[in-house]
Protein backbone atom coordinates (compact mmCIF):
# COMPACT_ATOMS: atom_id res chain seq x y z
CA UNK A 1 0.00 0.00 0.00
CA UNK A 2 1.75 3.10 -1.22
CA UNK A 3 -0.36 5.50 0.86
CA UNK A 4 0.40 3.57 4.06
CA UNK A 5 4.10 3.54 3.28
CA UNK A 6 3.87 7.26 2.71
CA UNK A 7 2.29 7.73 6.15
CA UNK A 8 4.95 5.51 7.75
CA UNK A 9 7.64 7.51 6.03
CA UNK A 10 6.23 10.84 7.13
CA UNK A 11 5.93 9.62 10.74
CA UNK A 12 9.52 8.41 10.76
CA UNK A 13 10.65 11.54 8.97
CA UNK A 14 9.02 13.85 11.50
CA UNK A 15 10.91 12.09 14.30
CA UNK A 16 14.15 12.42 12.35
CA UNK A 17 13.38 16.09 11.89
CA UNK A 18 12.98 16.63 15.65
CA UNK A 19 16.31 14.87 16.29
CA UNK A 20 18.02 16.89 13.59
CA UNK A 21 16.63 20.14 15.02
CA UNK A 22 18.57 19.44 18.21
CA UNK A 23 21.80 19.25 16.24
CA UNK A 24 21.06 22.23 14.09
CA UNK A 25 20.21 24.54 17.01
CA UNK A 26 23.51 23.84 18.74
CA UNK A 27 25.46 24.06 15.51
CA UNK A 28 23.79 27.32 14.55
CA UNK A 29 24.77 29.01 17.79
CA UNK A 30 28.07 27.38 18.70
CA UNK A 31 29.39 26.01 15.41
CA UNK A 32 29.76 22.75 17.29
CA UNK A 33 28.49 19.35 16.31
CA UNK A 34 27.15 17.90 19.50
CA UNK A 35 28.04 14.23 19.15
CA UNK A 36 26.40 13.49 22.50
CA UNK A 37 22.95 14.49 21.23
CA UNK A 38 22.09 10.95 20.12
CA UNK A 39 22.87 9.56 23.57
CA UNK A 40 20.88 12.28 25.33
CA UNK A 41 18.00 11.33 23.05
CA UNK A 42 18.45 7.68 24.08
CA UNK A 43 18.29 8.63 27.78
CA UNK A 44 15.07 10.53 27.07
CA UNK A 45 13.62 7.36 25.59
CA UNK A 46 14.66 5.32 28.63
CA UNK A 47 13.25 7.81 31.14
CA UNK A 48 9.98 7.85 29.20
CA UNK A 49 9.93 4.06 29.08
CA UNK A 50 10.55 3.74 32.82
CA UNK A 51 7.76 6.20 33.60
CA UNK A 52 5.23 4.50 31.30
CA UNK A 53 5.98 0.84 31.99
CA UNK A 54 7.34 0.83 35.56
CA UNK A 55 5.45 3.70 37.23
CA UNK A 56 2.39 3.26 34.97
CA UNK A 57 1.93 6.97 34.59
CA UNK A 58 0.44 8.67 31.58
CA UNK A 59 2.30 9.52 28.41
CA UNK A 60 2.15 13.22 29.29
CA UNK A 61 4.14 12.61 32.46
CA UNK A 62 6.57 10.47 30.46
CA UNK A 63 7.17 13.42 28.16
CA UNK A 64 7.62 15.76 31.12
CA UNK A 65 10.07 13.39 32.79
CA UNK A 66 12.06 12.88 29.60
CA UNK A 67 12.20 16.63 28.96
CA UNK A 68 13.31 17.38 32.53
CA UNK A 69 16.06 14.77 32.59
CA UNK A 70 17.45 15.51 29.14
CA UNK A 71 17.37 19.26 29.81
CA UNK A 72 19.42 18.63 32.94
CA UNK A 73 21.86 16.52 30.93
CA UNK A 74 22.11 19.28 28.37
CA UNK A 75 22.98 21.73 31.12
CA UNK A 76 25.68 19.44 32.52
CA UNK A 77 27.07 18.83 29.03
CA UNK A 78 27.38 22.54 28.41
CA UNK A 79 28.77 23.29 31.83
CA UNK A 80 31.45 20.61 31.99
CA UNK A 81 32.29 19.56 28.43
CA UNK A 82 31.76 22.69 26.34
CA UNK A 83 32.13 25.84 28.44
CA UNK A 84 35.65 25.01 29.72
CA UNK A 85 36.80 24.79 26.10
CA UNK A 86 35.42 28.17 25.08
CA UNK A 87 37.73 31.12 24.93
CA UNK A 88 40.79 28.93 25.29
CA UNK A 89 43.42 30.46 23.09
CA UNK A 90 44.89 28.17 20.48
CA UNK A 91 42.26 25.52 21.00
CA UNK A 92 41.66 23.33 17.98
CA UNK A 93 38.24 23.71 16.34
CA UNK A 94 38.02 19.94 16.67
CA UNK A 95 38.27 20.07 20.47
CA UNK A 96 34.51 20.42 21.16
CA UNK A 97 33.76 17.64 18.66
CA UNK A 98 36.13 15.28 20.47
CA UNK A 99 34.87 16.39 23.88
CA UNK A 100 31.25 15.63 22.96
CA UNK A 101 32.31 12.28 21.46
CA UNK A 102 33.71 11.61 24.94
CA UNK A 103 30.40 12.46 26.57
CA UNK A 104 28.54 10.25 24.10
CA UNK A 105 30.74 7.26 24.97
CA UNK A 106 30.22 7.86 28.68
CA UNK A 107 26.44 8.07 28.30
CA UNK A 108 26.15 5.03 26.06
CA UNK A 109 28.10 2.89 28.48
CA UNK A 110 26.37 4.23 31.57
CA UNK A 111 23.10 3.22 29.86
CA UNK A 112 24.63 -0.18 29.18
CA UNK A 113 25.45 -0.57 32.89
CA UNK A 114 22.04 0.69 34.01
CA UNK A 115 19.73 -0.92 31.50
CA UNK A 116 21.75 -3.72 29.88
CA UNK A 117 22.30 -4.28 26.18
CA UNK A 118 18.98 -5.84 25.17
CA UNK A 119 15.79 -4.34 23.85
CA UNK A 120 13.26 -2.88 26.27
CA UNK A 121 9.58 -2.90 25.48
CA UNK A 122 7.99 0.55 25.29
CA UNK A 123 4.25 0.03 25.68
CA UNK A 124 1.86 2.79 24.80
CA UNK A 125 -1.75 2.54 25.98
CA UNK A 126 -3.19 3.18 22.54
CA UNK A 127 -0.76 1.20 20.43
CA UNK A 128 -3.51 -0.83 18.74
CA UNK A 129 -6.04 1.94 18.10
CA UNK A 130 -6.41 2.59 14.40
CA UNK A 131 -8.90 3.91 11.90
CA UNK A 132 -9.61 3.09 8.34
CA UNK A 133 -9.70 6.06 6.02
CA UNK A 134 -10.99 4.45 2.87
CA UNK A 135 -8.56 1.64 2.07
CA UNK A 136 -5.79 3.16 4.20
CA UNK A 137 -5.15 2.18 7.82
CA UNK A 138 -3.85 4.90 10.08
CA UNK A 139 -2.66 4.24 13.62
CA UNK A 140 -3.46 6.75 16.33
CA UNK A 141 0.18 6.62 17.45
CA UNK A 142 1.23 7.95 14.07
CA UNK A 143 -1.19 10.83 14.30
CA UNK A 144 0.02 11.70 17.80
CA UNK A 145 3.67 11.56 16.74
CA UNK A 146 3.02 13.75 13.75
CA UNK A 147 1.00 16.24 15.79
CA UNK A 148 3.67 16.52 18.50
CA UNK A 149 6.46 16.94 15.96
CA UNK A 150 4.61 19.63 14.04
CA UNK A 151 3.70 21.46 17.25
CA UNK A 152 7.30 21.32 18.38
CA UNK A 153 8.71 22.56 15.09
CA UNK A 154 6.12 25.31 14.73
CA UNK A 155 6.67 26.36 18.34
CA UNK A 156 10.41 26.49 17.86
CA UNK A 157 10.14 28.50 14.66
CA UNK A 158 7.74 30.97 16.28
CA UNK A 159 9.91 31.26 19.36
CA UNK A 160 13.02 31.89 17.27
CA UNK A 161 11.30 34.48 15.12
CA UNK A 162 8.99 36.32 17.50
CA UNK A 163 10.39 36.37 21.02
CA UNK A 164 13.14 38.43 22.57
CA UNK A 165 15.07 35.34 23.64
CA UNK A 166 14.72 33.87 20.16
CA UNK A 167 16.07 37.05 18.66
CA UNK A 168 19.01 36.98 21.10
CA UNK A 169 19.67 33.39 20.10
CA UNK A 170 19.67 34.25 16.42
CA UNK A 171 21.96 37.21 17.09
CA UNK A 172 24.35 34.94 18.95
CA UNK A 173 24.26 32.47 16.08
CA UNK A 174 24.99 35.26 13.62
CA UNK A 175 28.04 36.50 15.49
CA UNK A 176 28.85 35.68 19.08
CA UNK A 177 31.12 38.63 19.80
CA UNK A 178 28.90 41.24 18.21
CA UNK A 179 25.91 39.87 20.07
CA UNK A 180 27.85 40.11 23.33
CA UNK A 181 28.75 43.74 22.54
CA UNK A 182 25.07 44.46 21.90
CA UNK A 183 24.29 43.35 25.42
CA UNK A 184 23.20 39.76 24.81
CA UNK A 185 24.18 37.51 27.69
CA UNK A 186 25.78 35.03 25.30
CA UNK A 187 26.77 32.51 27.93
CA UNK A 188 23.16 32.27 29.07
CA UNK A 189 21.93 32.00 25.50
CA UNK A 190 24.41 29.22 24.76
CA UNK A 191 23.37 27.30 27.85
CA UNK A 192 19.72 27.80 26.96
CA UNK A 193 20.35 26.57 23.43
CA UNK A 194 22.03 23.36 24.53
CA UNK A 195 19.31 22.77 27.13
CA UNK A 196 16.48 23.32 24.63
CA UNK A 197 18.18 21.17 22.01
CA UNK A 198 18.66 18.39 24.54
CA UNK A 199 15.04 18.61 25.68
CA UNK A 200 13.95 18.23 22.06
CA UNK A 201 16.13 15.15 21.97
CA UNK A 202 14.24 13.86 25.00
CA UNK A 203 10.89 14.39 23.26
CA UNK A 204 12.21 12.63 20.18
CA UNK A 205 13.31 9.72 22.38
CA UNK A 206 9.79 9.18 23.68
CA UNK A 207 8.40 9.54 20.14
CA UNK A 208 10.74 6.81 18.92
CA UNK A 209 9.70 4.60 21.80
CA UNK A 210 6.06 5.11 20.78
CA UNK A 211 6.77 4.50 17.10
CA UNK A 212 8.93 1.37 17.36
CA UNK A 213 7.72 -0.05 20.71
CA UNK A 214 11.21 -1.03 21.73
CA UNK A 215 14.36 0.85 22.74
CA UNK A 216 17.96 -0.09 23.53
CA UNK A 217 21.20 1.60 24.49
CA UNK A 218 22.52 1.50 20.92
CA UNK A 219 19.69 3.57 19.48
CA UNK A 220 21.41 6.85 20.35
CA UNK A 221 24.30 6.07 18.04
CA UNK A 222 22.11 4.94 15.14
CA UNK A 223 19.74 7.88 15.45
CA UNK A 224 22.54 10.34 16.14
CA UNK A 225 24.39 9.40 12.98
CA UNK A 226 21.19 9.87 11.00
CA UNK A 227 20.55 13.23 12.63
CA UNK A 228 24.04 14.29 11.59
CA UNK A 229 23.39 13.11 8.06
CA UNK A 230 20.19 15.14 7.96
CA UNK A 231 21.74 18.42 9.06
CA UNK A 232 24.51 18.04 6.54
CA UNK A 233 21.93 17.15 3.92
CA UNK A 234 19.61 20.00 4.81
CA UNK A 235 22.30 22.54 5.55
CA UNK A 236 24.08 23.11 8.86
CA UNK A 237 22.27 25.46 11.18
CA UNK A 238 19.21 25.68 8.95
CA UNK A 239 15.97 24.94 10.81
CA UNK A 240 13.94 24.50 7.63
CA UNK A 241 16.66 22.31 6.17
CA UNK A 242 16.57 20.01 9.19
CA UNK A 243 12.80 19.53 8.82
CA UNK A 244 12.92 18.94 5.07
CA UNK A 245 15.98 16.68 5.38
CA UNK A 246 14.28 14.63 8.10
CA UNK A 247 11.17 14.09 6.00
CA UNK A 248 13.18 13.18 2.90
CA UNK A 249 15.28 10.67 4.81
CA UNK A 250 12.26 9.13 6.56
CA UNK A 251 10.39 8.74 3.29
CA UNK A 252 13.31 7.36 1.33
CA UNK A 253 14.19 4.84 4.06
CA UNK A 254 10.61 3.63 4.28
CA UNK A 255 10.30 3.31 0.53
CA UNK A 256 13.62 1.50 0.16
CA UNK A 257 12.57 -1.00 2.83
CA UNK A 258 9.15 -1.45 1.22
CA UNK A 259 10.27 -1.77 -2.38
CA UNK A 260 13.98 -2.54 -2.21
CA UNK A 261 16.41 -4.20 0.17
CA UNK A 262 16.03 -3.60 3.90
CA UNK A 263 19.69 -4.41 4.62
CA UNK A 264 20.93 -1.22 3.05
CA UNK A 265 18.44 1.00 4.85
CA UNK A 266 21.01 2.35 7.30
CA UNK A 267 23.43 3.21 4.51
CA UNK A 268 21.02 5.58 2.74
CA UNK A 269 21.70 8.44 5.11
CA UNK A 270 25.45 8.20 4.62
CA UNK A 271 25.41 7.77 0.90
CA UNK A 272 23.16 10.83 0.83
CA UNK A 273 25.53 12.96 2.90
CA UNK A 274 28.58 11.88 0.96
CA UNK A 275 26.84 12.79 -2.30
CA UNK A 276 25.50 16.09 -0.94
CA UNK A 277 28.85 17.06 0.57
CA UNK A 278 30.56 16.51 -2.72
CA UNK A 279 28.04 18.32 -4.89
CA UNK A 280 26.79 21.08 -2.63
CA UNK A 281 28.86 21.11 0.58
CA UNK A 282 26.70 23.74 2.25
CA UNK A 283 23.68 21.42 2.09
CA UNK A 284 20.44 21.79 0.21
CA UNK A 285 19.17 24.76 2.20
CA UNK A 286 22.34 26.05 3.81
CA UNK A 287 24.29 29.25 3.33
CA UNK A 288 27.80 28.90 1.96
CA UNK A 289 30.02 28.31 4.97
CA UNK A 290 33.53 29.60 5.44
CA UNK A 291 34.85 26.12 6.16
CA UNK A 292 33.56 24.63 2.93
CA UNK A 293 34.06 27.28 0.32
CA UNK A 294 37.12 25.79 -1.30
Amino acid at each position, binding site marked *: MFAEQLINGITLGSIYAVVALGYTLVFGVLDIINMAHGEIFMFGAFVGMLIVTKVHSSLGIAFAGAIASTAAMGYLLERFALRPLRGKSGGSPLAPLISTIG*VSIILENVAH*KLFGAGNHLFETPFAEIRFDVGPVTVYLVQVVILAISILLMAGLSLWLRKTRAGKALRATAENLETAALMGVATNRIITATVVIASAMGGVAGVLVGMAFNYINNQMGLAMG*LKGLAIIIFGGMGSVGGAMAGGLILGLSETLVVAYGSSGYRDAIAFVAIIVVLLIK*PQGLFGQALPGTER
Partner: protein
Amino acid sequence: MPFDWLNPYHLQVASFILINVILGVSIYVTLATGQLSLGNAGFMSIGAYTSAILTTGHGVPMVAGIVSGSLLAGVSGILVGIPALRLSGVYLAIATLGFGEVVRVVFINWESLTGGAVGIAAIPQMGREILAALRDAGFSPESLGLQNNQFISLAVFVILSVTTLAVILFFLRLANSRVGRAYGAIRMDEAAAEATGIDTTYYKVLAFSQGALLSGLAGALYAHATSYVSPADFTYHRAVEILVFAVFGGSEHLLGPVFGAMFLTVIPEVLRFVNDYRHIIYGTLLVLMMVFRPQGVIDPPLLDRLSGREPAEGH
Protein backbone atom coordinates in the same frame (compact mmCIF):
# COMPACT_ATOMS: atom_id res chain seq x y z
CA MET B 1 61.57 -25.96 29.60
CA PRO B 2 63.87 -22.90 29.64
CA PHE B 3 61.19 -20.52 28.28
CA ASP B 4 58.37 -21.23 30.72
CA TRP B 5 58.04 -17.52 31.45
CA LEU B 6 57.08 -16.94 27.83
CA ASN B 7 53.34 -16.72 28.21
CA PRO B 8 51.33 -16.86 24.91
CA TYR B 9 48.67 -14.65 26.47
CA HIS B 10 51.16 -11.88 27.23
CA LEU B 11 52.53 -12.16 23.72
CA GLN B 12 49.03 -11.84 22.33
CA VAL B 13 48.41 -8.67 24.33
CA ALA B 14 51.74 -7.35 23.06
CA SER B 15 50.66 -8.15 19.51
CA PHE B 16 47.43 -6.20 19.94
CA ILE B 17 49.45 -3.29 21.29
CA LEU B 18 51.57 -3.30 18.16
CA ILE B 19 48.53 -3.39 15.86
CA ASN B 20 47.01 -0.50 17.80
CA VAL B 21 50.28 1.42 17.50
CA ILE B 22 50.03 1.13 13.70
CA LEU B 23 46.43 2.37 13.94
CA GLY B 24 47.60 5.26 16.12
CA VAL B 25 50.19 6.20 13.52
CA SER B 26 47.54 5.95 10.81
CA ILE B 27 45.33 8.62 12.39
CA TYR B 28 48.40 10.71 13.22
CA VAL B 29 49.45 10.92 9.59
CA THR B 30 46.17 12.50 8.52
CA LEU B 31 46.11 14.70 11.63
CA ALA B 32 49.61 15.87 10.73
CA THR B 33 47.99 17.92 7.95
CA GLY B 34 45.25 19.11 10.30
CA GLN B 35 42.62 16.75 8.87
CA LEU B 36 40.53 14.64 11.24
CA SER B 37 39.50 11.39 9.58
CA LEU B 38 37.12 9.09 11.40
CA GLY B 39 37.16 6.63 8.51
CA ASN B 40 40.17 4.63 9.66
CA ALA B 41 38.02 1.80 10.99
CA GLY B 42 36.53 1.56 7.50
CA PHE B 43 39.94 1.42 5.82
CA MET B 44 41.05 -1.10 8.43
CA SER B 45 38.11 -3.34 7.51
CA ILE B 46 38.94 -3.05 3.81
CA GLY B 47 42.48 -4.27 4.52
CA ALA B 48 41.29 -7.04 6.81
CA TYR B 49 38.56 -8.34 4.51
CA THR B 50 40.66 -8.16 1.35
CA SER B 51 43.45 -10.19 2.84
CA ALA B 52 41.04 -12.60 4.55
CA ILE B 53 39.04 -13.25 1.36
CA LEU B 54 42.11 -13.65 -0.84
CA THR B 55 43.92 -16.05 1.50
CA THR B 56 40.95 -18.15 2.62
CA GLY B 57 38.96 -18.32 -0.60
CA HIS B 58 41.54 -18.04 -3.34
CA GLY B 59 44.70 -19.61 -1.96
CA VAL B 60 46.73 -16.41 -2.26
CA PRO B 61 49.89 -16.47 -0.10
CA MET B 62 49.54 -14.50 3.11
CA VAL B 63 52.18 -11.88 2.35
CA ALA B 64 50.53 -11.13 -1.00
CA GLY B 65 47.17 -10.93 0.78
CA ILE B 66 48.45 -8.44 3.36
CA VAL B 67 50.11 -6.32 0.69
CA SER B 68 46.97 -6.31 -1.48
CA GLY B 69 44.80 -5.47 1.53
CA SER B 70 46.99 -2.50 2.46
CA LEU B 71 47.22 -1.30 -1.12
CA LEU B 72 43.49 -1.57 -1.72
CA ALA B 73 42.87 0.42 1.46
CA GLY B 74 45.42 2.99 0.29
CA VAL B 75 43.77 3.27 -3.12
CA SER B 76 40.34 3.68 -1.52
CA GLY B 77 42.00 6.35 0.60
CA ILE B 78 42.92 8.23 -2.57
CA LEU B 79 39.45 7.75 -4.04
CA VAL B 80 37.75 8.96 -0.86
CA GLY B 81 40.41 11.54 -0.16
CA ILE B 82 40.30 13.52 -3.39
CA PRO B 83 36.65 14.53 -3.08
CA ALA B 84 36.53 14.49 0.74
CA LEU B 85 39.41 16.91 1.18
CA ARG B 86 37.32 19.66 -0.33
CA LEU B 87 35.82 19.52 3.15
CA SER B 88 37.54 20.50 6.32
CA GLY B 89 37.17 20.19 10.05
CA VAL B 90 33.94 18.68 11.30
CA TYR B 91 32.58 18.16 7.77
CA LEU B 92 35.47 15.93 6.89
CA ALA B 93 35.14 14.10 10.21
CA ILE B 94 31.48 13.32 9.54
CA ALA B 95 31.90 12.45 5.88
CA THR B 96 34.63 9.97 6.78
CA LEU B 97 32.53 8.62 9.64
CA GLY B 98 29.78 8.11 7.06
CA PHE B 99 32.23 6.35 4.76
CA GLY B 100 33.15 3.92 7.54
CA GLU B 101 29.50 3.14 8.21
CA VAL B 102 28.75 2.57 4.52
CA VAL B 103 31.68 0.15 4.25
CA ARG B 104 30.42 -1.73 7.29
CA VAL B 105 26.85 -1.95 5.97
CA VAL B 106 28.18 -3.23 2.64
CA PHE B 107 30.24 -5.92 4.39
CA ILE B 108 27.19 -6.99 6.40
CA ASN B 109 24.98 -7.25 3.32
CA TRP B 110 27.37 -8.66 0.73
CA GLU B 111 27.01 -12.13 2.21
CA SER B 112 28.28 -14.18 -0.74
CA LEU B 113 31.68 -12.50 -0.43
CA THR B 114 32.02 -11.52 3.20
CA GLY B 115 29.93 -14.00 5.15
CA GLY B 116 27.61 -11.19 6.26
CA ALA B 117 27.28 -10.39 9.94
CA VAL B 118 28.94 -13.69 10.90
CA GLY B 119 32.20 -12.70 9.26
CA ILE B 120 35.06 -14.83 7.99
CA ALA B 121 36.60 -17.55 10.15
CA ALA B 122 39.57 -19.86 9.70
CA ILE B 123 41.78 -17.19 8.17
CA PRO B 124 45.37 -18.49 7.96
CA GLN B 125 47.17 -17.43 11.11
CA MET B 126 50.68 -15.98 10.75
CA GLY B 127 52.29 -17.99 13.52
CA ARG B 128 50.77 -21.30 12.49
CA GLU B 129 51.70 -20.81 8.85
CA ILE B 130 55.31 -20.14 9.79
CA LEU B 131 55.37 -23.14 12.09
CA ALA B 132 53.95 -25.36 9.32
CA ALA B 133 56.50 -24.07 6.82
CA LEU B 134 59.35 -24.61 9.25
CA ARG B 135 58.13 -28.11 10.12
CA ASP B 136 58.21 -28.97 6.43
CA ALA B 137 61.80 -27.81 6.41
CA GLY B 138 62.54 -30.19 9.26
CA PHE B 139 62.57 -27.67 12.13
CA SER B 140 60.77 -28.17 15.40
CA PRO B 141 60.28 -25.52 18.08
CA GLU B 142 61.22 -28.06 20.74
CA SER B 143 64.80 -27.76 19.59
CA LEU B 144 64.70 -24.18 20.89
CA GLY B 145 62.94 -25.30 24.04
CA LEU B 146 59.63 -23.76 22.99
CA GLN B 147 56.18 -25.29 23.00
CA ASN B 148 54.12 -25.02 19.84
CA ASN B 149 51.72 -22.33 21.08
CA GLN B 150 54.63 -20.36 22.53
CA PHE B 151 56.38 -20.47 19.19
CA ILE B 152 53.23 -19.41 17.32
CA SER B 153 52.61 -16.39 19.55
CA LEU B 154 56.27 -15.48 19.49
CA ALA B 155 56.37 -15.58 15.68
CA VAL B 156 53.34 -13.26 15.47
CA PHE B 157 54.93 -10.92 17.97
CA VAL B 158 58.24 -10.80 16.11
CA ILE B 159 56.57 -10.14 12.73
CA LEU B 160 54.42 -7.39 14.20
CA SER B 161 57.36 -5.83 16.04
CA VAL B 162 59.42 -5.63 12.89
CA THR B 163 56.51 -4.20 10.90
CA THR B 164 55.58 -1.67 13.55
CA LEU B 165 59.15 -0.56 14.04
CA ALA B 166 59.56 -0.11 10.29
CA VAL B 167 56.36 1.96 10.18
CA ILE B 168 57.45 4.17 13.07
CA LEU B 169 60.96 4.71 11.65
CA PHE B 170 59.54 5.49 8.22
CA PHE B 171 57.22 8.16 9.56
CA LEU B 172 59.81 9.59 11.96
CA ARG B 173 62.10 10.09 8.96
CA LEU B 174 59.19 11.42 6.92
CA ALA B 175 58.55 14.11 9.53
CA ASN B 176 61.92 15.71 8.77
CA SER B 177 61.65 15.35 5.03
CA ARG B 178 60.19 17.69 2.43
CA VAL B 179 56.88 15.86 2.74
CA GLY B 180 56.81 16.12 6.53
CA ARG B 181 57.58 19.84 6.45
CA ALA B 182 54.81 20.33 3.90
CA TYR B 183 52.39 18.49 6.23
CA GLY B 184 53.42 20.68 9.13
CA ALA B 185 53.02 23.85 7.09
CA ILE B 186 49.51 22.84 5.97
CA ARG B 187 48.57 22.06 9.54
CA MET B 188 49.78 25.43 10.80
CA ASP B 189 48.13 27.53 8.12
CA GLU B 190 46.80 26.11 4.91
CA ALA B 191 46.51 29.43 3.07
CA ALA B 192 50.07 30.41 3.98
CA ALA B 193 51.34 26.99 2.94
CA GLU B 194 49.64 27.35 -0.42
CA ALA B 195 51.08 30.83 -0.81
CA THR B 196 54.61 29.49 -0.35
CA GLY B 197 54.08 27.12 -3.23
CA ILE B 198 53.08 23.92 -1.46
CA ASP B 199 50.59 21.87 -3.47
CA THR B 200 48.19 21.50 -0.55
CA THR B 201 45.71 19.22 -2.31
CA TYR B 202 48.47 16.81 -3.31
CA TYR B 203 49.93 16.61 0.18
CA LYS B 204 46.54 16.33 1.88
CA VAL B 205 45.50 13.46 -0.38
CA LEU B 206 48.93 11.89 0.14
CA ALA B 207 48.55 12.08 3.93
CA PHE B 208 45.00 10.77 3.72
CA SER B 209 45.97 7.77 1.61
CA GLN B 210 49.02 7.05 3.75
CA GLY B 211 46.71 6.92 6.76
CA ALA B 212 44.29 4.68 4.87
CA LEU B 213 47.09 2.36 3.77
CA LEU B 214 48.38 2.05 7.32
CA SER B 215 44.88 1.31 8.62
CA GLY B 216 44.52 -1.33 5.93
CA LEU B 217 47.86 -2.84 6.91
CA ALA B 218 46.81 -2.92 10.56
CA GLY B 219 43.52 -4.55 9.52
CA ALA B 220 45.22 -7.22 7.42
CA LEU B 221 47.67 -7.99 10.23
CA TYR B 222 44.76 -8.14 12.66
CA ALA B 223 42.95 -10.64 10.43
CA HIS B 224 46.00 -12.92 10.30
CA ALA B 225 46.76 -12.55 13.99
CA THR B 226 43.25 -13.45 15.21
CA SER B 227 42.23 -15.59 12.17
CA TYR B 228 38.70 -14.23 12.43
CA VAL B 229 37.08 -10.98 11.26
CA SER B 230 33.50 -9.74 11.37
CA PRO B 231 31.83 -6.39 10.75
CA ALA B 232 31.51 -5.98 14.54
CA ASP B 233 35.29 -5.47 14.69
CA PHE B 234 35.10 -2.28 12.65
CA THR B 235 32.29 -0.20 14.11
CA TYR B 236 32.08 3.44 15.09
CA HIS B 237 33.59 2.39 18.42
CA ARG B 238 36.75 1.23 16.71
CA ALA B 239 36.99 4.58 14.92
CA VAL B 240 36.61 6.38 18.24
CA GLU B 241 39.15 4.10 19.91
CA ILE B 242 41.72 4.99 17.23
CA LEU B 243 40.90 8.66 17.76
CA VAL B 244 41.44 8.30 21.51
CA PHE B 245 44.96 6.94 20.94
CA ALA B 246 45.91 10.16 19.17
CA VAL B 247 43.97 12.53 21.42
CA PHE B 248 45.25 11.02 24.64
CA GLY B 249 48.82 10.41 23.54
CA GLY B 250 49.12 13.67 21.64
CA SER B 251 48.81 14.42 17.98
CA GLU B 252 51.63 16.91 17.50
CA HIS B 253 54.38 14.33 17.47
CA LEU B 254 54.44 10.79 16.11
CA LEU B 255 55.40 9.37 19.48
CA GLY B 256 52.15 10.72 20.96
CA PRO B 257 49.74 8.26 19.34
CA VAL B 258 52.33 5.50 19.74
CA PHE B 259 52.39 6.14 23.47
CA GLY B 260 48.60 6.53 23.56
CA ALA B 261 48.01 3.21 21.82
CA MET B 262 50.45 1.37 24.08
CA PHE B 263 49.19 2.87 27.32
CA LEU B 264 45.50 2.48 26.55
CA THR B 265 45.89 -1.12 25.41
CA VAL B 266 47.99 -2.17 28.40
CA ILE B 267 45.97 -0.54 31.18
CA PRO B 268 42.76 -2.59 30.73
CA GLU B 269 44.84 -5.78 30.67
CA VAL B 270 46.86 -4.92 33.76
CA LEU B 271 43.90 -3.65 35.76
CA ARG B 272 41.23 -6.21 34.96
CA PHE B 273 38.52 -4.33 36.84
CA VAL B 274 39.22 -1.40 34.55
CA ASN B 275 38.16 -3.45 31.56
CA ASP B 276 34.48 -3.33 32.55
CA TYR B 277 34.59 0.44 32.63
CA ARG B 278 37.03 0.83 29.76
CA HIS B 279 34.71 2.77 27.50
CA ILE B 280 33.48 5.03 30.27
CA ILE B 281 37.11 5.79 31.09
CA TYR B 282 37.85 6.47 27.40
CA GLY B 283 34.98 8.93 27.29
CA THR B 284 36.05 10.68 30.47
CA LEU B 285 39.62 10.84 29.18
CA LEU B 286 38.47 12.52 25.96
CA VAL B 287 36.59 15.23 27.85
CA LEU B 288 39.33 15.78 30.44
CA MET B 289 42.06 15.93 27.83
CA MET B 290 40.14 18.51 25.82
CA VAL B 291 39.61 20.62 28.94
CA PHE B 292 43.06 20.39 30.49
CA ARG B 293 45.56 19.26 27.89
CA PRO B 294 44.12 19.46 24.37
CA GLN B 295 47.49 18.72 22.79
CA GLY B 296 47.73 15.29 24.48
CA VAL B 297 50.17 13.83 27.00
CA ILE B 298 53.17 14.03 24.70
CA ASP B 299 53.93 17.27 22.88
CA PRO B 300 57.15 18.63 21.36
CA PRO B 301 58.13 20.78 24.42
CA LEU B 302 57.84 17.69 26.66
CA LEU B 303 60.00 15.66 24.28
CA ASP B 304 62.58 18.45 24.25
CA ARG B 305 62.68 18.49 28.04
CA LEU B 306 62.95 14.69 28.22
CA SER B 307 65.83 14.61 25.79
CA GLY B 308 67.54 17.45 27.68
CA ARG B 309 67.47 19.83 24.76
CA GLU B 310 66.59 23.49 25.06
CA PRO B 311 63.01 23.99 23.95
CA ALA B 312 62.93 25.27 20.40
CA GLU B 313 62.02 28.92 19.97
CA GLY B 314 58.48 29.67 19.06
CA HIS B 315 56.83 26.75 20.85
